[in-house]
Protein backbone atom coordinates (compact mmCIF):
# COMPACT_ATOMS: atom_id res chain seq x y z
CA UNK A 1 0.00 0.00 0.00
CA UNK A 2 1.33 3.44 -0.84
CA UNK A 3 2.09 5.92 1.87
CA UNK A 4 1.66 9.65 1.34
CA UNK A 5 4.25 12.06 2.66
CA UNK A 6 2.11 12.87 5.74
CA UNK A 7 1.75 9.28 6.82
CA UNK A 8 4.18 6.99 8.49
CA UNK A 9 6.07 4.43 6.39
CA UNK A 10 4.64 0.94 6.54
CA UNK A 11 7.88 -0.33 8.08
CA UNK A 12 7.39 1.99 11.05
CA UNK A 13 3.83 0.81 11.48
CA UNK A 14 5.03 -2.77 11.46
CA UNK A 15 7.73 -1.82 13.97
CA UNK A 16 5.05 -0.31 16.21
CA UNK A 17 3.01 -3.50 16.12
CA UNK A 18 6.11 -5.63 16.74
CA UNK A 19 7.12 -3.49 19.70
CA UNK A 20 10.36 -2.47 18.04
CA UNK A 21 10.09 1.29 17.63
CA UNK A 22 12.52 3.64 19.35
CA UNK A 23 11.08 6.06 21.88
CA UNK A 24 11.10 9.17 19.66
CA UNK A 25 9.39 7.35 16.79
CA UNK A 26 6.86 5.85 19.19
CA UNK A 27 5.92 9.25 20.58
CA UNK A 28 5.58 10.74 17.09
CA UNK A 29 3.50 7.81 15.83
CA UNK A 30 1.32 7.93 18.91
CA UNK A 31 0.43 11.56 18.09
CA UNK A 32 -0.20 10.67 14.46
CA UNK A 33 -2.47 7.68 15.13
CA UNK A 34 -4.68 9.89 17.26
CA UNK A 35 -5.64 11.89 14.16
CA UNK A 36 -4.95 9.70 11.11
CA UNK A 37 -7.68 7.20 10.27
CA UNK A 38 -5.73 5.62 7.41
CA UNK A 39 -2.68 4.74 9.47
CA UNK A 40 -4.86 3.62 12.33
CA UNK A 41 -6.73 1.29 9.99
CA UNK A 42 -3.43 -0.14 8.77
CA UNK A 43 -2.15 -0.72 12.30
CA UNK A 44 -5.40 -2.37 13.36
CA UNK A 45 -5.12 -4.60 10.30
CA UNK A 46 -1.57 -5.55 11.21
CA UNK A 47 -2.77 -6.34 14.76
CA UNK A 48 -5.64 -8.46 13.38
CA UNK A 49 -8.19 -6.43 15.25
CA UNK A 50 -11.79 -6.79 14.12
CA UNK A 51 -13.90 -4.21 12.45
CA UNK A 52 -15.87 -3.40 15.65
CA UNK A 53 -16.01 0.27 16.33
CA UNK A 54 -13.44 1.40 18.87
CA UNK A 55 -16.24 2.34 21.28
CA UNK A 56 -17.35 -1.31 21.40
CA UNK A 57 -13.89 -2.79 22.00
CA UNK A 58 -14.03 -5.41 24.72
CA UNK A 59 -11.38 -7.42 26.46
CA UNK A 60 -11.16 -10.44 28.74
CA UNK A 61 -8.55 -9.93 31.42
CA UNK A 62 -6.13 -12.62 32.50
CA UNK A 63 -7.38 -14.59 35.51
CA UNK A 64 -5.67 -14.38 38.84
CA UNK A 65 -6.24 -16.99 41.51
CA UNK A 66 -8.67 -15.75 44.13
CA UNK A 67 -6.81 -14.84 47.28
CA UNK A 68 -7.91 -15.95 50.72
CA UNK A 69 -9.40 -12.99 52.66
CA UNK A 70 -6.50 -11.10 54.23
CA UNK A 71 -7.72 -8.86 57.00
CA UNK A 72 -5.54 -6.31 58.67
CA UNK A 73 -3.25 -7.63 61.35
CA UNK A 74 -2.73 -5.84 64.64
CA UNK A 75 0.61 -4.31 63.60
CA UNK A 76 -0.99 -2.57 60.63
CA UNK A 77 -3.82 -1.13 62.72
CA UNK A 78 -1.36 -0.02 65.39
CA UNK A 79 0.92 1.65 62.83
CA UNK A 80 -2.02 3.46 61.29
CA UNK A 81 -3.27 4.65 64.68
CA UNK A 82 0.22 5.97 65.42
CA UNK A 83 0.44 7.74 62.05
CA UNK A 84 3.35 5.58 60.91
CA UNK A 85 1.93 4.22 57.68
CA UNK A 86 2.98 6.02 54.52
CA UNK A 87 3.18 5.50 50.78
CA UNK A 88 2.32 2.08 49.46
CA UNK A 89 1.55 0.58 52.90
CA UNK A 90 -0.93 3.37 53.58
CA UNK A 91 -2.60 2.90 50.21
CA UNK A 92 -2.95 -0.85 50.78
CA UNK A 93 -4.35 -0.18 54.25
CA UNK A 94 -6.87 2.41 53.09
CA UNK A 95 -7.94 0.25 50.13
CA UNK A 96 -8.73 -2.62 52.49
CA UNK A 97 -10.51 -0.49 55.09
CA UNK A 98 -12.72 1.04 52.39
CA UNK A 99 -13.87 -2.47 51.42
CA UNK A 100 -13.95 -4.29 54.77
CA UNK A 101 -16.48 -3.29 57.42
CA UNK A 102 -14.90 -5.53 60.06
CA UNK A 103 -11.46 -3.95 59.73
CA UNK A 104 -12.94 -0.46 59.45
CA UNK A 105 -14.68 -1.14 62.76
CA UNK A 106 -11.44 -2.30 64.37
CA UNK A 107 -9.64 0.86 63.22
CA UNK A 108 -12.46 3.10 64.46
CA UNK A 109 -12.52 1.29 67.79
CA UNK A 110 -8.76 1.69 68.32
CA UNK A 111 -8.88 5.39 67.48
CA UNK A 112 -11.67 5.93 70.04
CA UNK A 113 -9.83 3.83 72.60
CA UNK A 114 -6.64 5.80 72.06
CA UNK A 115 -8.60 9.00 72.62
CA UNK A 116 -10.16 7.64 75.80
CA UNK A 117 -6.68 6.82 77.15
CA UNK A 118 -5.54 10.35 76.46
CA UNK A 119 -8.72 11.87 77.96
CA UNK A 120 -8.39 9.82 81.15
CA UNK A 121 -4.78 10.95 81.58
CA UNK A 122 -5.72 14.59 81.11
CA UNK A 123 -8.42 14.54 83.82
Amino acid sequence: MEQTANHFPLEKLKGYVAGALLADDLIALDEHLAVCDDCLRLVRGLMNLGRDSCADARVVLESEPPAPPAHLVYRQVESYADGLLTGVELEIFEAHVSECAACAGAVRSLREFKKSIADAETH
Partner: protein
Amino acid sequence: MRHKYSVAQQSFNLKPYLLAESVLQSEQHFSDLVARQVAPLVMCIIKHRLHSHVGNHFGLQNPEIDDIHGMVLIKIIEHLRELKKGRYGPTPEDFRGYVSMVAINACNEYFRQKYPEHNRLRFNLRYLLTHHAEFALWKNAEKVWLCGFRRWCGTDRPRRCVVGDELVEKISRSGVACDRHGAGPAGTVAFIFNAAEHPLSFDLLVRVVAELWQVKDCAVRSYDADPVLSDTLADTGVSPLAAIEQRVSLKCLWEELCQLPLGQRTALLLNLRDGQGRNVLTLLPVTRIATIKQISQVLEIPLDEFARMWNKLPLDDKAIAARLGATRQQVIKLRRAGRERLHRRLEQKSRCARKKSAGA
Protein backbone atom coordinates in the same frame (compact mmCIF):
# COMPACT_ATOMS: atom_id res chain seq x y z
CA MET B 1 -1.77 -30.19 72.38
CA ARG B 2 -2.14 -33.63 70.76
CA HIS B 3 -4.14 -34.02 67.62
CA LYS B 4 -5.63 -37.00 65.94
CA TYR B 5 -3.50 -36.52 62.85
CA SER B 6 0.21 -36.24 62.80
CA VAL B 7 1.05 -34.09 59.86
CA ALA B 8 4.69 -34.14 58.96
CA GLN B 9 6.41 -31.06 57.63
CA GLN B 10 6.50 -31.90 53.97
CA SER B 11 5.30 -30.22 50.86
CA PHE B 12 2.33 -31.70 49.09
CA ASN B 13 3.05 -33.51 45.87
CA LEU B 14 0.51 -32.29 43.35
CA LYS B 15 2.18 -33.81 40.32
CA PRO B 16 0.39 -37.20 40.28
CA TYR B 17 -2.93 -35.38 40.32
CA LEU B 18 -2.02 -32.63 37.86
CA LEU B 19 -0.28 -34.92 35.38
CA ALA B 20 -2.73 -37.84 35.50
CA GLU B 21 -4.14 -38.34 32.03
CA SER B 22 -7.21 -40.47 32.73
CA VAL B 23 -10.16 -39.12 34.68
CA LEU B 24 -10.13 -42.18 36.95
CA GLN B 25 -6.46 -41.77 37.88
CA SER B 26 -6.90 -38.04 38.32
CA GLU B 27 -9.82 -38.52 40.71
CA GLN B 28 -7.97 -41.19 42.69
CA HIS B 29 -4.95 -38.93 43.17
CA PHE B 30 -7.25 -36.02 44.00
CA SER B 31 -9.10 -38.01 46.70
CA ASP B 32 -5.84 -39.25 48.12
CA LEU B 33 -4.36 -35.74 48.26
CA VAL B 34 -7.39 -34.23 49.93
CA ALA B 35 -8.18 -37.03 52.37
CA ARG B 36 -4.66 -37.91 53.47
CA GLN B 37 -2.81 -34.62 53.30
CA VAL B 38 -4.98 -31.54 52.99
CA ALA B 39 -7.87 -32.42 55.33
CA PRO B 40 -5.68 -33.51 58.29
CA LEU B 41 -3.49 -30.44 58.05
CA VAL B 42 -6.51 -28.15 57.94
CA MET B 43 -8.10 -29.82 60.97
CA CYS B 44 -4.84 -29.61 62.91
CA ILE B 45 -4.52 -25.90 62.21
CA ILE B 46 -8.15 -25.11 63.03
CA LYS B 47 -8.06 -26.91 66.35
CA HIS B 48 -4.81 -25.27 67.35
CA ARG B 49 -5.79 -21.76 66.26
CA LEU B 50 -9.23 -21.78 67.75
CA HIS B 51 -8.05 -23.27 70.99
CA SER B 52 -5.46 -20.55 71.42
CA HIS B 53 -7.95 -17.83 70.45
CA VAL B 54 -11.03 -19.10 72.10
CA GLY B 55 -9.93 -21.70 74.63
CA ASN B 56 -12.77 -22.99 76.69
CA HIS B 57 -14.27 -19.60 77.36
CA PHE B 58 -16.68 -19.45 74.51
CA GLY B 59 -17.58 -23.12 74.57
CA LEU B 60 -16.50 -23.89 71.04
CA GLN B 61 -18.56 -26.77 69.76
CA ASN B 62 -17.44 -29.51 67.39
CA PRO B 63 -20.03 -28.61 64.74
CA GLU B 64 -18.43 -25.18 64.49
CA ILE B 65 -15.00 -26.72 63.94
CA ASP B 66 -16.52 -29.02 61.34
CA ASP B 67 -18.18 -26.05 59.61
CA ILE B 68 -14.93 -24.16 59.33
CA HIS B 69 -13.12 -27.31 58.21
CA GLY B 70 -15.70 -27.90 55.52
CA MET B 71 -15.56 -24.32 54.31
CA VAL B 72 -11.77 -24.38 54.00
CA LEU B 73 -11.82 -27.70 52.15
CA ILE B 74 -14.32 -26.35 49.64
CA LYS B 75 -12.02 -23.44 48.85
CA ILE B 76 -8.99 -25.66 48.47
CA ILE B 77 -10.83 -28.21 46.35
CA GLU B 78 -11.99 -25.41 44.06
CA HIS B 79 -8.42 -24.18 43.79
CA LEU B 80 -7.13 -27.67 42.97
CA ARG B 81 -9.74 -28.04 40.22
CA GLU B 82 -8.68 -24.73 38.70
CA LEU B 83 -5.02 -25.74 38.86
CA LYS B 84 -5.88 -28.94 36.99
CA LYS B 85 -7.52 -26.86 34.27
CA GLY B 86 -4.30 -24.87 34.05
CA ARG B 87 -6.03 -21.58 34.74
CA TYR B 88 -3.58 -20.25 37.25
CA GLY B 89 -0.37 -20.72 35.35
CA PRO B 90 2.49 -22.65 37.00
CA THR B 91 1.71 -24.82 40.04
CA PRO B 92 2.51 -23.02 43.29
CA GLU B 93 5.74 -24.31 44.77
CA ASP B 94 4.43 -24.27 48.27
CA PHE B 95 0.91 -25.65 48.15
CA ARG B 96 1.19 -26.74 51.76
CA GLY B 97 1.86 -23.11 52.66
CA TYR B 98 -1.19 -22.05 50.67
CA VAL B 99 -3.39 -24.59 52.47
CA SER B 100 -2.06 -23.39 55.85
CA MET B 101 -2.76 -19.78 54.92
CA VAL B 102 -6.35 -20.52 53.87
CA ALA B 103 -6.98 -22.42 57.11
CA ILE B 104 -5.43 -19.73 59.34
CA ASN B 105 -7.35 -16.98 57.57
CA ALA B 106 -10.59 -18.94 57.94
CA CYS B 107 -9.99 -19.20 61.70
CA ASN B 108 -9.22 -15.50 61.99
CA GLU B 109 -12.28 -14.73 59.93
CA TYR B 110 -14.43 -16.96 62.13
CA PHE B 111 -13.24 -15.31 65.31
CA ARG B 112 -13.52 -11.85 63.84
CA GLN B 113 -17.08 -12.45 62.60
CA LYS B 114 -18.38 -14.33 65.62
CA TYR B 115 -16.74 -12.21 68.30
CA PRO B 116 -16.05 -8.82 66.71
CA GLU B 117 -16.31 -6.87 69.95
CA HIS B 118 -13.89 -9.19 71.72
CA ASN B 119 -11.58 -9.04 68.73
CA ARG B 120 -11.54 -5.25 68.95
CA LEU B 121 -11.00 -5.36 72.68
CA ARG B 122 -7.94 -7.57 72.11
CA PHE B 123 -6.51 -5.02 69.69
CA ASN B 124 -7.24 -2.15 72.06
CA LEU B 125 -5.77 -3.79 75.15
CA ARG B 126 -2.70 -4.86 73.21
CA TYR B 127 -2.23 -1.24 72.17
CA LEU B 128 -2.53 -0.07 75.77
CA LEU B 129 -0.07 -2.64 77.07
CA THR B 130 2.56 -1.80 74.44
CA HIS B 131 2.21 1.98 74.60
CA HIS B 132 1.67 2.74 78.27
CA ALA B 133 4.83 3.32 80.30
CA GLU B 134 3.61 1.30 83.27
CA PHE B 135 2.54 -1.83 81.45
CA ALA B 136 4.19 -4.55 79.40
CA LEU B 137 3.31 -7.49 77.19
CA TRP B 138 5.75 -10.34 76.69
CA LYS B 139 5.98 -13.99 75.70
CA ASN B 140 7.17 -16.58 78.17
CA ALA B 141 9.25 -19.68 77.45
CA GLU B 142 6.07 -21.61 76.64
CA LYS B 143 5.18 -18.96 74.05
CA VAL B 144 2.20 -17.78 76.10
CA TRP B 145 1.55 -14.04 75.97
CA LEU B 146 1.72 -12.56 79.47
CA CYS B 147 1.02 -9.04 80.66
CA GLY B 148 1.44 -6.99 83.78
CA PHE B 149 3.26 -4.04 85.25
CA ARG B 150 6.53 -3.31 83.50
CA ARG B 151 8.51 -4.27 86.61
CA TRP B 152 7.12 -7.80 86.25
CA CYS B 153 8.36 -8.10 82.70
CA GLY B 154 10.21 -11.35 82.02
CA THR B 155 8.44 -13.31 84.73
CA ASP B 156 7.92 -16.69 83.21
CA ARG B 157 4.70 -18.17 84.52
CA PRO B 158 1.30 -16.64 85.11
CA ARG B 159 -0.15 -17.25 88.51
CA ARG B 160 -2.22 -20.31 87.76
CA CYS B 161 -4.36 -20.11 90.92
CA VAL B 162 -5.91 -16.85 89.80
CA VAL B 163 -8.84 -17.48 87.52
CA GLY B 164 -10.90 -14.92 85.74
CA ASP B 165 -14.07 -15.33 87.80
CA GLU B 166 -12.15 -14.94 91.06
CA LEU B 167 -10.50 -11.80 89.81
CA VAL B 168 -13.76 -10.24 88.64
CA GLU B 169 -15.36 -11.02 91.98
CA LYS B 170 -12.44 -9.59 93.92
CA ILE B 171 -12.61 -6.36 91.92
CA SER B 172 -16.39 -6.12 92.22
CA ARG B 173 -16.18 -6.59 96.02
CA SER B 174 -13.65 -3.80 96.27
CA GLY B 175 -16.38 -1.37 95.23
CA VAL B 176 -14.06 0.46 92.88
CA ALA B 177 -15.72 1.47 89.66
CA CYS B 178 -13.83 -0.15 86.84
CA ASP B 179 -16.00 0.95 84.02
CA ARG B 180 -14.18 2.26 81.00
CA HIS B 181 -15.42 5.80 81.47
CA GLY B 182 -14.79 6.12 85.20
CA ALA B 183 -11.42 4.53 85.79
CA GLY B 184 -10.48 4.73 82.12
CA PRO B 185 -8.63 1.94 80.29
CA ALA B 186 -5.28 2.40 82.05
CA GLY B 187 -6.92 2.72 85.45
CA THR B 188 -8.95 -0.44 84.92
CA VAL B 189 -5.95 -2.49 83.81
CA ALA B 190 -3.79 -1.20 86.67
CA PHE B 191 -6.51 -2.16 89.13
CA ILE B 192 -6.72 -5.64 87.65
CA PHE B 193 -2.97 -6.13 87.87
CA ASN B 194 -2.97 -4.91 91.48
CA ALA B 195 -5.76 -7.32 92.31
CA ALA B 196 -3.93 -10.20 90.60
CA GLU B 197 -0.59 -9.34 92.22
CA HIS B 198 1.16 -11.30 89.45
CA PRO B 199 1.38 -11.40 85.64
CA LEU B 200 -1.69 -12.64 83.83
CA SER B 201 -2.04 -14.31 80.50
CA PHE B 202 -3.20 -11.80 77.90
CA ASP B 203 -6.25 -13.92 77.12
CA LEU B 204 -7.26 -13.77 80.78
CA LEU B 205 -6.86 -9.99 80.91
CA VAL B 206 -9.12 -9.66 77.85
CA ARG B 207 -11.72 -11.86 79.47
CA VAL B 208 -11.68 -9.97 82.76
CA VAL B 209 -11.90 -6.57 81.08
CA ALA B 210 -14.72 -7.85 78.87
CA GLU B 211 -16.62 -8.90 82.02
CA LEU B 212 -16.01 -5.61 83.82
CA TRP B 213 -16.90 -3.51 80.81
CA GLN B 214 -19.81 -5.72 79.80
CA VAL B 215 -18.40 -6.27 76.34
CA LYS B 216 -20.80 -8.58 74.61
CA ASP B 217 -20.95 -9.90 71.10
CA CYS B 218 -24.41 -9.99 69.57
CA ALA B 219 -25.86 -13.23 68.25
CA VAL B 220 -25.13 -13.65 64.58
CA ARG B 221 -27.64 -11.62 62.63
CA SER B 222 -29.28 -12.69 59.45
CA TYR B 223 -26.87 -12.02 56.61
CA ASP B 224 -29.80 -11.19 54.35
CA ALA B 225 -30.88 -8.40 56.67
CA ASP B 226 -27.43 -6.98 57.19
CA PRO B 227 -25.60 -5.79 54.09
CA VAL B 228 -22.53 -4.94 56.16
CA LEU B 229 -22.20 -8.48 57.47
CA SER B 230 -22.77 -9.99 54.09
CA ASP B 231 -20.07 -7.76 52.64
CA THR B 232 -17.54 -9.15 55.07
CA LEU B 233 -18.23 -12.77 54.28
CA ALA B 234 -15.29 -14.54 52.74
CA ASP B 235 -17.43 -16.12 50.05
CA THR B 236 -19.73 -13.95 48.02
CA GLY B 237 -22.19 -15.05 45.41
CA VAL B 238 -20.02 -13.73 42.61
CA SER B 239 -16.64 -15.28 42.06
CA PRO B 240 -14.05 -12.64 41.15
CA LEU B 241 -12.79 -15.20 38.68
CA ALA B 242 -16.14 -15.24 36.88
CA ALA B 243 -16.30 -11.45 36.86
CA ILE B 244 -12.84 -11.12 35.46
CA GLU B 245 -13.65 -13.59 32.72
CA GLN B 246 -16.48 -11.44 31.45
CA ARG B 247 -15.71 -9.39 28.41
CA VAL B 248 -15.49 -5.93 29.81
CA SER B 249 -15.73 -2.76 27.79
CA LEU B 250 -12.22 -1.45 27.29
CA LYS B 251 -13.48 2.10 27.59
CA CYS B 252 -15.18 1.38 30.94
CA LEU B 253 -12.11 -0.47 32.12
CA TRP B 254 -9.87 2.49 31.27
CA GLU B 255 -12.21 4.98 32.97
CA GLU B 256 -12.27 2.91 36.13
CA LEU B 257 -8.52 2.33 36.07
CA CYS B 258 -7.98 6.07 35.97
CA GLN B 259 -10.00 6.44 39.17
CA LEU B 260 -7.79 4.12 41.20
CA PRO B 261 -5.19 5.46 43.65
CA LEU B 262 -1.76 5.72 42.03
CA GLY B 263 -0.21 2.60 43.55
CA GLN B 264 -3.09 0.36 42.49
CA ARG B 265 -3.24 2.02 39.08
CA THR B 266 0.46 1.44 38.53
CA ALA B 267 0.44 -2.16 39.76
CA LEU B 268 -2.46 -2.97 37.44
CA LEU B 269 -1.65 -0.99 34.30
CA LEU B 270 1.99 -1.99 34.03
CA ASN B 271 1.02 -5.66 34.28
CA LEU B 272 -2.35 -5.77 32.54
CA ARG B 273 -2.77 -8.83 30.33
CA ASP B 274 -5.71 -10.28 28.48
CA GLY B 275 -6.76 -13.91 28.57
CA GLN B 276 -4.06 -14.76 26.01
CA GLY B 277 -1.34 -13.04 28.01
CA ARG B 278 -1.12 -10.04 25.66
CA ASN B 279 -0.46 -6.53 26.89
CA VAL B 280 -3.83 -4.79 27.14
CA LEU B 281 -2.30 -1.31 27.07
CA THR B 282 -1.42 -1.70 23.38
CA LEU B 283 -5.15 -1.77 22.61
CA LEU B 284 -5.78 1.67 24.06
CA PRO B 285 -4.11 3.83 21.38
CA VAL B 286 -5.45 1.74 18.49
CA THR B 287 -9.01 2.03 19.80
CA ARG B 288 -8.48 5.76 20.44
CA ILE B 289 -9.44 5.31 24.09
CA ALA B 290 -6.13 6.72 25.28
CA THR B 291 -2.85 7.71 23.65
CA ILE B 292 0.51 6.58 24.98
CA LYS B 293 0.98 10.15 26.19
CA GLN B 294 -2.28 10.01 28.16
CA ILE B 295 -1.37 6.64 29.64
CA SER B 296 1.98 8.04 30.78
CA GLN B 297 0.17 10.98 32.42
CA VAL B 298 -2.19 8.67 34.25
CA LEU B 299 0.79 6.67 35.47
CA GLU B 300 2.65 9.87 36.35
CA ILE B 301 5.68 8.68 34.38
CA PRO B 302 7.50 11.15 32.07
CA LEU B 303 6.57 10.48 28.46
CA ASP B 304 10.08 9.76 27.16
CA GLU B 305 10.69 7.33 30.03
CA PHE B 306 7.36 5.61 29.39
CA ALA B 307 8.06 5.42 25.67
CA ARG B 308 11.30 3.58 26.44
CA MET B 309 9.35 1.22 28.73
CA TRP B 310 6.54 0.59 26.23
CA ASN B 311 8.16 -2.26 24.36
CA LYS B 312 8.96 -4.07 27.62
CA LEU B 313 5.35 -4.11 28.85
CA PRO B 314 3.78 -5.91 30.65
CA LEU B 315 6.33 -5.63 33.47
CA ASP B 316 6.79 -8.31 36.11
CA ASP B 317 6.12 -7.63 39.77
CA LYS B 318 9.78 -7.21 40.60
CA ALA B 319 10.15 -4.38 38.09
CA ILE B 320 6.93 -2.72 39.25
CA ALA B 321 8.09 -3.03 42.85
CA ALA B 322 11.36 -1.28 41.97
CA ARG B 323 9.40 1.57 40.36
CA LEU B 324 7.14 2.00 43.38
CA GLY B 325 9.86 1.52 45.98
CA ALA B 326 7.79 -1.34 47.34
CA THR B 327 8.16 -5.07 47.87
CA ARG B 328 6.86 -7.66 45.45
CA GLN B 329 4.23 -8.69 48.01
CA GLN B 330 3.02 -5.12 48.28
CA VAL B 331 2.66 -4.92 44.50
CA ILE B 332 0.56 -8.06 44.57
CA LYS B 333 -1.63 -6.60 47.33
CA LEU B 334 -2.01 -3.33 45.44
CA ARG B 335 -3.02 -5.13 42.29
CA ARG B 336 -5.45 -7.31 44.19
CA ALA B 337 -7.02 -4.28 45.87
CA GLY B 338 -7.30 -2.58 42.49
CA ARG B 339 -8.91 -5.61 40.85
CA GLU B 340 -11.43 -5.97 43.67
CA ARG B 341 -12.45 -2.37 43.35
CA LEU B 342 -12.60 -2.64 39.55
CA HIS B 343 -14.71 -5.77 39.82
CA ARG B 344 -17.13 -4.07 42.20
CA ARG B 345 -17.49 -0.93 40.16
CA LEU B 346 -17.83 -2.72 36.82
CA GLU B 347 -20.49 -4.96 38.36
CA GLN B 348 -22.39 -1.90 39.60
CA LYS B 349 -22.22 -0.31 36.16
CA SER B 350 -23.38 -3.49 34.53
CA ARG B 351 -26.31 -3.78 36.96
CA CYS B 352 -27.34 -0.18 36.28
CA ALA B 353 -27.16 -0.76 32.55
CA ARG B 354 -29.33 -3.88 32.85
CA LYS B 355 -31.91 -2.03 34.98
CA LYS B 356 -31.98 0.77 32.46
CA SER B 357 -32.55 -1.50 29.51
CA ALA B 358 -35.18 -3.49 31.45
CA GLY B 359 -37.00 -0.25 32.23
CA ALA B 360 -36.72 1.11 28.69
